[in-house]
C-alpha cells in the first residue's frame, strides 16, 4: 500500500523541481562547465576561440607577475578582513549579548550598513577617504596629524587596506548578529560558576566564551572568507583595482582581463584558479578548525 502510493507522488515531485532545475542547469551549471572549455582557448571575444590546451595555465603559473600580485593582494585582503572582522564581531557581540533596550538599539545600528549596496558604501567612503576634503584627512589635520593624512585610495601602499577597512565597516554588524545568536546559547551557569571561582572577565572569556563559541567562529570565518573573495562590487566601485593593480583582487582582475583587455580565454583560466584557491582555503580552514579545536 505504502509503496503504491509513493510512486505517483514522486512523479509530481519531479514536475515541481523541473522549472528550478531547468533554469539552474541552463544558466548556472552549464556556464560553469563551459568555463572549463573557454579556459583552454585564446579568444578576443569576436573571432573563433583558438584551442591552446593548458597554455593559459602554464603561462599564468610561470610567467604572469600580475596574477601573483593580485593573488597576493587577495590573500592579504582576505586575511585582514577575516581576522579583524571576526575579532570585532565577537568583541561587540560579547558587549551586546544581553537583551536590553540599549543593546537592541545598538545592534540595529551596527547592522545597518549591511542593508546598503556596495556601490552606496563605496560612494560614502570615496568621500571620507578624499585626500583634500575627506572627513578622515580633515579630522587628522585638525589634530595636527598632517603626516598621517594620506592619499588613502590613490596610493599603492594604502588602497587595498583602505578598501579592506571599508569592507569591515560594511559587514561587522552582520557577523556580530550571528555571534550574538551563538553566545546566547551558552548556559549562564558556566559564567556563574566561573565567577564563584573568582575568574576575571578575561579568564571567563578564555575558559568559557571562546571555547563555547568555537562552532560559531567556524561559521563566521568560513562565511567571511567567501565574502572577502566576493568583494568585487566594492573594489570595482572604489578603485577599479588601481592604482597600478595595487588594490585588485581576483574577481576584479578576471573582469578587467575579460572586458577591458578582451582576453576571454585567459580570464576564464584565471577564474578556474580562483575556484581552486577558494576550495583549498576552505578545506585548509576546516582541517585547522577540526584538528585544533575539535569542532
Amino acid at each position, binding site marked *: 500500500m505504502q509503496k503504491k502510493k*509513493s510512486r505517483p*507522488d*514522486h512523479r*509530481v*515531485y519531479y514536475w*515541481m523541481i523541473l*522549472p*528550478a532545475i531547468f*533554469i*539552474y542547469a*541552463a*544558466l*548556472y*551549471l*552549464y*556556464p*560553469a562547465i*563551459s*568555463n572549463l572549455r*573557454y579556459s583552454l582557448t585564446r579568444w578576443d*571575444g569576436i573571432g573563433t576561440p583558438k584551442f591552446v590546451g593548458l597554455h593559459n595555465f602554464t603561462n599564468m603559473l610561470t610567467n604572469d607577475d600580475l596574477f601573483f600580485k593580485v593573488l597576493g593582494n587577495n590573500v592579504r585582503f582576505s586575511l585582514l578582513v577575516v581576522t579583524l572582522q571576526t575579532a*570585532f564581531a565577537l*568583541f561587540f557581540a560579547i558587549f*551586546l549579548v544581553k537583551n536590553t533596550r540599549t543593546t537592541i538599539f*545598538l545592534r*540595529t545600528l*551596527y*547592522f*545597518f550598513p549591511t542593508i*546598503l*549596496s*556596495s*556601490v*552606496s558604501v563605496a*560612494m*560614502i567612503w570615496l*568621500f571620507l577617504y*578624499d585626500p583634500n576634503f575627506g*572627513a578622515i584627512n580633515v579630522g587628522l589635520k585638525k589634530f595636527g596629524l598632517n603626516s598621517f593624512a594620506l592619499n588613502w585610495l590613490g596610493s599603492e601602499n594604502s588602497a587595498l587596506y583602505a578598501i579592506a577597512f571599508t569592507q569591515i565597516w560594511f559587514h*561587522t554588524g*552582520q*557577523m556580530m*548578529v*550571528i555571534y550574538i*545568536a551563538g553566545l546566547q546559547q551558552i548556559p549562564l551557569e558556566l559564567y556563574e560558576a566561573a565567577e564563584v571561582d573568582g575568574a576575571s*572577565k578575561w579568564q571567563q572569556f578564555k575558559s568559557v566564551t571562546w571555547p563555547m563559541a568555537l562552532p560559531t567562529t567556524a*561559521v563566521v570565518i568560513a*562565511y567571511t572568507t567567501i565574502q572577502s*573573495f*566576493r568583494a568585487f*562590487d566594492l573594489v*570595482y*566601485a572604489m578603485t577599479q583595482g588601481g592604482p597600478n593593480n595595487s588594490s585588485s583582487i581576483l574577481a576584479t582582475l*578576471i*573582469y578587467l582581463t*575579460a572586458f577591458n583587455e578582451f582576453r*576571454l580565454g585567459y*580570464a576564464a583560466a584565471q577564474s578556474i584558479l580562483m*575556484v581552486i584557491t577558494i*576550495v583549498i582555503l576552505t578545506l585548509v580552514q576546516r582541517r585547522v578548525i577540526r584538528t585544533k579545536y575539535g569542532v
Partner: protein
Amino acid sequence: MYKVLRTLALTTFAIAIVIPTAIVALGSFKSDVEVYSKPLALPTNWSFRNYNRLISDGGIFTNFKNSVIVTSFSVVLTLILASMAAFAISRMTNVTGRVLFGLFALGLAIPGQVNIIPIYLLFQRLHLTNSLLGLVLINIATTLPISIFILTSFFRELPKEMFEVSAIDGAGPFQIYRSIALPLSRPAMGATSIFLFVISWNDLLYPLLLVTQSDKKTLPLALLDYRGEYATSFSMIFTAVMVASIPMVVMYLFMQRSFIAGLTAGAVKG
C-alpha cells in the same frame, strides 16, 4: 575598567556608523561648498535643489523603475520555484532526491562570480543582454541554490504527520504544498524573501556585466555613472545614494527584526 572599555568601544563604532550616514543624508540637501567645508553641519537652508537637478537630468526614475521591476520579479519567481523544488526535495524518499539536493548544494560551493565570462557569452547568444528579463533570469539562477537550501531545511523540520493526514484525505502532493506547506512556511519564506530582496536590489556585478544601455540600468549601476558624471560634486553623488538607499532604509526601519533574521539566515546557511 571593563565598563569603561565597553562604553568606549560601543560609542566609537556607533559614531563610525552615524557620522558617514549623517554626512550623506545632510549633504544631499547642501551645496558642494557646504559639503566640503562643514560636512556635519545642518544645511544653512534646506533645499531640494540637488534632488530636482537629479530628476531633471533624466535617468533616475527609469533606473529606479528598473530596479523595482528586476527586484520584485526576481524575488517572487525565485520564491515560487525554490519553494516548490524544496518541498519536493524534502518529501522525496529515494536517492534522486538526495542527488538533486546535492546538485543545488554544489551551487553554494562555487561563487557565481567566477562564471561571469560564460554567463556573458551565453546571455549575448540568447539576446538577453540589455534586457530586464535577462537580469531577472540570472538573479533567479544564482539565488536558487541558497533559497532551496534554506527552505529544504525548513520543510524537513515540519512534522510529517501533518502531510500524511492530508494525503489520507486524498490530497495530492501539489495540493499539500499549496494548502499546508506554504502557509506553514511563512516565516522561512519571509526571511528568504528579505535576503533575496537585498541581494537583488544592491547587486552591481550582473547589471555591469549584462547591461550597457542607459535605459536598462538599475540603480547601483547608474550610481557608478553618476560618479563619473558628477565627479567633483559629492552633493549630487550623495543625493543619488539617498535615492538608491531610501526604499531599503525605510523597510529596515519598519522591519528590523525580519531584516536581521533574513540576512543572518542567508549567511549561516550559505
